[in-house]
């Protein structure tokens, strides 16, 4: 795709090669990602935090084209700030997800990014929304990015209803570690954020501290 009459000869930075995951529990959510940004075969950033705050208790996880995803997150961050001032209280997670969906859908031909929106609000507690291709759907958990293909079986088998906060954190870290092992385009460190009524807690697990499996 060319813009302005010239074309970029080299591949553009992309976080599509990525693994993102979010899971809701009673009273909050855990959202996590790997940290690799690649441009073709080169890793241009090996410690990128793909979990972007949209508001105090609402985060989104970025995948797809790095530029598109970051810009969408920034725009929605601004729109949410305006919205929360207008209504005079913290915005709903569903509002944030709807704003992301509106951009995804309106510019679906031009943009190539998928954001998973997750957070906590007073009305509905912990929620996870997917906005792929401009749809909006709430799910108990969601995975995305190229690395997610390898962990569909794992998350289907491991997810149970009624998991606690700690269970969810382990679930996210295990899922990220498994995907990062198998997907050449995911790697680095694992970031995860736990959001509940008391606040947000950001954590980073370094590569050598990630869970290991039978062949390591």
């Amino acid at each position: 795709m060319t813009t302005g009459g010239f074309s970029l000869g080299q591949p553009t930075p992309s976080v599509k090669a990525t693994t993102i995951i979010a899971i809701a529990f009673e009273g909050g959510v855990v959202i996590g990602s790997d940290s690799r940004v690649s441009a073709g075969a080169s890793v241009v950033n090996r410690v990128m935090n793909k979990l972007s705050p949209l508001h105090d208790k609402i985060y989104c996880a970025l995948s797809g084209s790095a530029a598109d995803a970051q810009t969408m997150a920034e725009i929605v961050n601004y729109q949410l700030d305006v919205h929360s001032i207008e209504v005079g209280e913290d915005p709903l997670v569903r509002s944030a997800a709807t704003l992301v969906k509106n951009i995804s859908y309106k510019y679906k031909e031009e943009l190539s990014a998928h954001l998973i929106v997750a957070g906590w609000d007073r009305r509905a507690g912990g929620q996870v929304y997917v906005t792929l291709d401009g749809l909006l759907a709430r799910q108990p958990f969601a995975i995305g990015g190229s690395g997610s293909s390898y962990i569909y079986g794992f998350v289907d088998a491991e997810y149970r209803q009624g998991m606690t906060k700690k269970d969810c954190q382990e679930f996210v870290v295990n899922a990220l570690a498994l995907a990062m092992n198998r997907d050449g385009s995911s790697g680095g460190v694992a970031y995860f954020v736990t959001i509940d009524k008391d606040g947000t807690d950001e954590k980073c697990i370094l590569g050598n501290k990630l869970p290991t499996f039978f062949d390591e």
Partner: protein
Amino acid sequence: MLKCFTDNRFNTHGQRLTVHFDSPNLYGAVPEVSPAKGDPSSAHRPINTTTIMAVEFDGGVVIGADSRTTTGAYIANRVTDKLTKVHERIFCCRSGSAADTQAIAEAVSYQLGFHSIELDEPPLVQTAANLFKQMCYRYREELMAGIIVAGWDKRKGGQVYTVPMGGMLVRQPVSVGGSGSSYIYGFIDSNYKTGMTKEECLRFTADALALAMERDGSSGGVVRLAAITEAGLERSVILGNQLPSFSA
């Protein structure tokens, strides 16, 4: 570029099969009465886009596969048997083009039978795996075949060798293949343990295949399992409504 040759075999309707190649990714056999030659949209070749799996345990191997064969969007066979015997204690799991893998398995089965008569003892699994590899590597441009070879022999017990597309050969304690395999790498990595018993391996294989069939549109039907040990072969089938289910 269109190349074709006639394969002297017949499909189940008694029609002579002609193999057409018109793109690097579409292979298979179509009846000679198919649409005009050179029609690039004749993508209706039987394909086993599938999920196959094999696990070693002490004393043998467990192999498993789904049962779906598709030609385009139509499921040509919903009860396919993708676990093919190449010798008494050596089986292969087939994925990719149905025609290619059947032809390769028949050729290897013949070669193994001959070799076993010469040797006057059962062939080694490694021998069978190498025969598959030689054929898949030599004809790598023409074939679309991902094969897992598994069996038992006296020298090394239960062994699993994988020969993916391209024709490499490597032995692994557990191996998965086919389009549905992508979805279960995470499950396999986290749930496989060394030292599992035959029953644990059967349960592990059935769970993994059920998960893959749930997510992969090209895999489905029933789960066919086989356990190969020194004592012999035990085949079983898990019907669709008896598959393990997961809360998601």
